[in-house]
């Protein structure tokens, strides 16, 4: 086991755990404001202190993890759900017009700066978590399409694919039975990385007010609201910032670790 895999797993696991736990229990009610006890430092009652409305930061961070993870999961789901089939299709018809249409369409999406488009979408349809998900999801599609196509192309030249063709199997069936399972390693790794990017993107959109709307807690918006108090109560900004940092770092390490663990070529080098 690589240390990256373990550390990444722990960090990402903590975020998941906090989000899951928040459904059952939070130290305080997230919506509950107590202006009298605003901007409290870390204490026995408020483990991570309170914000400018007197809300418990730990509870908000836990529920905020829910938002971040939900957005990232669905966005990666959209990216994989459309991108992987498109990539497989492009690889199956490599060199033909299907390949060209799919890959040039990808280039088109890639050519737009993703956050600008996300802002455009939320500006047009109103800011909400759902619109943020759709915007981030769309930009995941070409990433997965390219990774899938890139992984599938060399597999198509192997003898076992020719054997499957000799056994009368069509391109679609070969794609599903042989190509997809053999590209899965790479897709899992890419999925982890995209997951962390999704969390980062959601935080960014929420920070500028285009993500989850109040009162739903979100790490990005907590950070935005705290910046005015940074000099008097720095922990209010530092804690959500650390959450984003730790989760993204954890997922990136996990992705790296998984690549090392799943790539048979690296296994050979260690042996």
């Amino acid at each position: 086991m690589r240390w990256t895999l373990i550390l990444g797993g722990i960090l990402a696991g903590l975020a998941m755990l906090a989000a899951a736990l928040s459904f059952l229990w939070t130290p305080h009610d997230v919506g509950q404001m107590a202006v009298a006890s605003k901007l409290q430092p870390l204490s026995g009652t408020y483990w991570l202190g309170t914000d400018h409305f007197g809300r418990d930061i730990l509870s908000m961070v836990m529920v905020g993890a829910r938002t971040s993870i939900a957005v990232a999961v669905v966005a990666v789901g959209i990216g994989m759900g459309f991108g992987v089939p498109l990539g497989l299709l492009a690889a199956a018809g490599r060199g033909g017009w299907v390949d060209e249409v799919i890959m040039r369409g990808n280039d088109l999406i890639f050519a737009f700066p993703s956050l600008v488009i996300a802002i455009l979408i939320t500006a047009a349809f109103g800011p909400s978590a759902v619109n943020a998900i759709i915007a981030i999801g769309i930009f995941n599609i070409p990433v997965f399409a390219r990774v899938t196509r890139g992984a599938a192309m060399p597999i198509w030249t192997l003898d076992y694919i020719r054997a499957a063709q000799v056994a009368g199997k069509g391109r679609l069936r070969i794609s599903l039975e042989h190509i997809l399972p053999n590209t899965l390693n790479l897709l899992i790794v890419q999925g982890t990385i995209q997951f962390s990017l999704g969390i980062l993107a959601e935080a960014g959109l929420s920070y500028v007010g285009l993500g989850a709307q109040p009162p739903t807690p979100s790490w990005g918006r907590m950070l935005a609201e705290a910046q005015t108090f940074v000099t008097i109560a720095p922990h209010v900004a530092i804690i959500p910032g650390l959450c984003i940092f730790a989760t993204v770092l954890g997922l990136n390490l996990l992705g790296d670790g998984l690549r090392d663990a799943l790539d048979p070529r690296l296994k050979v080098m260690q042996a």
Partner: protein
Amino acid sequence: MIALENLSVAIRGTPILRNVDLTLAPGQITGLVGESGSGKSMTALAIMGLLPRGAVAGGAVRLDGQNLLTTPESALCRIRGNRIGMIFQEPMTALNPLMTIGDQVAEVLRIHHRMSREAARARARDRLDRVGLPGPRFPLTLYPHELSGGQRQRVAIALAIAEAPDLLIADEPTTALDVTTQAQILDLLRDLVREAGMSLLLITHDLAVVAGIADQVAVMREGELVENGETEALFRNQQHPYTRALFAASRHVPARVTAQADDTPILSVRDAVREYVLARRTTFGPHEVLRAVDGVSFDIQDGESVGLVGESGCGKSTLTRAILGLDPLQGGEIRLDGEAVGPGGAMPAALRAKVQVVFQDPFGSFDPRWRVDRLLAEPFHLTGRPRNWRERVAEALSEVGIDPSAARRHIHEFSGGQRQRLAIARALIIRPRLIVLDEAVSALDVQVRAQVLDLLADLRRSHGMAYLFISHDLGVVRGVTDRVLVMDRGGIVEQGPTERVMGQPAHATTRRLMAAMPEIPADWSVV
């Protein structure tokens, strides 16, 4: 002079080499033969000081008295490339695809001598001339992809001899090349050794190659040298039973099987033409067309075994793809048992089920994620999976001599020879009438190859299948085919009964192939 004294290597406690004693004298060619996994390549790595991590070496590797095993890495770096050069099996991957051949050879010289760029270039030119890549046709500015496999191997040799090393190690240098190219590369190596007075350690599994070129031969088995001596004497005496077994296996010819021709030949190729459209030379220029198969016609009768031989690039593989119904033809037709063959859905499953294939590479032929039973059952896609498919898989496994309990295992648990048996089992399972064997035994060790050839002969006898045996190994083709087709530049230049074609070759291509075929002299045998 290099001497291995009592060399032993163990990796994590498992002994890989045991007490290897070998002297490599200047101007001498030493053949190191053995089967895969016998420790041949590990010996080379031990000499170079490139053992994998976790390997512990004992004994000594002496270069003019200095023990290389105890020499520090920084000093070894000066010795490697400078006094010991190495050539690898795969000329496709041994060169950097992004560097010109001139820069690659010059780089070696610059590393060791801090030579000026111009001086290094001049020396590189000289070395490339020396390995048979003369200036006008092969400028220093060429990239590896612009060269053929044999030419790349020449560049790799130029890299290895750039510093005029004392010892050149060649690890299966010709295994990936066809017979004529192999003969040229071996000639080149022999000349280099004789002229420069260096010693050559030639690692190979091919006894015939060794017989033709080596001064002394060492036979390796499971990490030990079982026999070692002057080439002709070793071949004539064969004192160790293992040497005798290897020798017998390399000459092995399975028992003859007779064909059972009927009115329709199982395969009939008529004026087949296959063209490829190449990229445009200039932006608006016309696409050039390469005619890889040019008007080929031949028949294969039921139960007949036919060989198809030729140099690489002659169109064998392209023709094979068309016969298997994977690629379309631009002219002519291919009929399988009287019905037309075509790519994709154009060919009904029942017709497709009449032909199956076994490929060269036992490692690339199977999906690593599938288990053996599912892999072997894949051709049932053509016929519909019978209810007793598991029994059929077990039956096919026992036919190729593999325990049916292996059905639930993954492919990485099998050796190269076992995988090739599995590939044959997969081809057999739906009882095709024709099996195309595309270099199916080229990658196998001699003893395994002999077993597989026997197996193929037995199966032909019991099931009456026809074989199309594609190979550049003429020795094998001679042993197992009734008729042979010789292919050159997309066309069949000679065909007829194997014995006649190979015994009295009429066409220049056949004669060239026969002359290049490495052979153990007929009188060098004990029995």
